[in-house]
């Protein structure tokens, strides 16, 4: 039970890191919505995922 909990818990951090990487990828390489507003949204949206992946927040 504790092991399963730990696996789920750490998967959560891995997923956060994965999403952060995906967002960085989309920030630089995407075919649709190339405007400045979307650049800002992509760059800004990375913050909570990085904070979580680094065990800060």
């Amino acid at each position, binding site marked *: *039970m*504790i092991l399963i*909990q730990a696996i*789920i*818990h750490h998967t*959560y951090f891995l997923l956060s890191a994965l999403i952060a990487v995906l967002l*960085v990828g989309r*920030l*630089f390489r995407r075919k649709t919505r*190339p405007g*400045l507003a979307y*650049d*800002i949204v*992509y*760059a*800004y949206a*990375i*913050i909570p995922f*990085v*904070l*979580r992946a680094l*065990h*800060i*927040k």
Partner: protein
Amino acid sequence: MSERTLAARRLALLAASLLLMVVGSKDIRALRAYRETVVVSEAFTRQVPLSTYFDGIRGTLMDVPVFVFDSGVPGGSVLILGGAHAYEPASPVMAYVVMENIAVTRGKVFVIARANMSASTLGMLGNAYPPFFRVKTPWGEPKYRIGDRETNPLEQWPDPFTFVHYPSTQNLAYQDSRNLNRTFPGRPDGNLSERTSFAISELIRREKIDLTIDVHEASMGYPVVSTYVCHERAEEMCMMAAMMLSAEQFPMKTENSPKSLRGLTHREIGDFTESFAVLMETPEPFIDKFVGPMTEALMLTGKDEFMQTAADRGLLYAEYDIKTGATLDYRVGRHLGGAAEIIKQMGEFYPAKKVGVTWPTYAEVMEKGVGAFLHDPAKAARERVFRH
């Protein structure tokens, strides 16, 4: 726009975001890393990690130190449990004042100042309050964490859709799975909060704790503010203690622990251990939902105009006057007086369980302030200084 210019713009935006993240998370990181300092009294006997009683929390933030003050003279034993809800900081501060000033002549006293250390490492989502508050002392202004009510999701996640309390199977709110005062008596293979509760229950069983005092603060719109909440086995002691306090020191109510509300210390410790279980609440305007800005000043003074309006309209469950507020001195003093009185009453009702103990009184704290009873770690012997 050329590809190169576009890439440069996006790189600049990414750098700006990361800079914003670093700057914006400064307080969050500081709160998580900060450790409070305590100078234990000469009555200090030993310190052991909570995992001594249950290995399932070893290596986690919940593996907090347990401080023991043993007179060496046979008598009763008391556990003071501070910081179960970190955003009720008169609780750990009361525990620190006890640890720094306690003298024990009979029996022994165990103190956990930060029962939910994890909860003290984050603020409450949606409540823009400061991470720390400072207490004025003759030698400086030590700071203390304010924290949240529940275990930090960094230590325990995900929350269930509904938290099913063990062993009663009562359904509680999802966030109560991280609420240390809803997870007692604990479960050895449960989530981190349940395992922590189990470790504390094991401490109580193995050390044969006679009286457990769980120290809290309450919003003034909550009926049990300024109250002892007691397991039925401790009912008479609590009634007597409340009467004595109300007659001689400050208003104190008492009520029995509801049998149908599960997971709380005053219910489960009473049911699942031999200990008398008592929970104490003081008025803490800071955590009422209708106060104005949640500032450090509000934490220290408890003075708020909206609280006064609520008091004028008879909406509070304790007396309130903005001229006096509900200062940290008052709240810590109440806890010190409340704990001393219930310990005294246990000795009156059960002489074999008598604990001879002294620490600053309510009157002394009201006169001199809490800071007068916190000692300068720079001038203390190294073996008596603990970072916590």
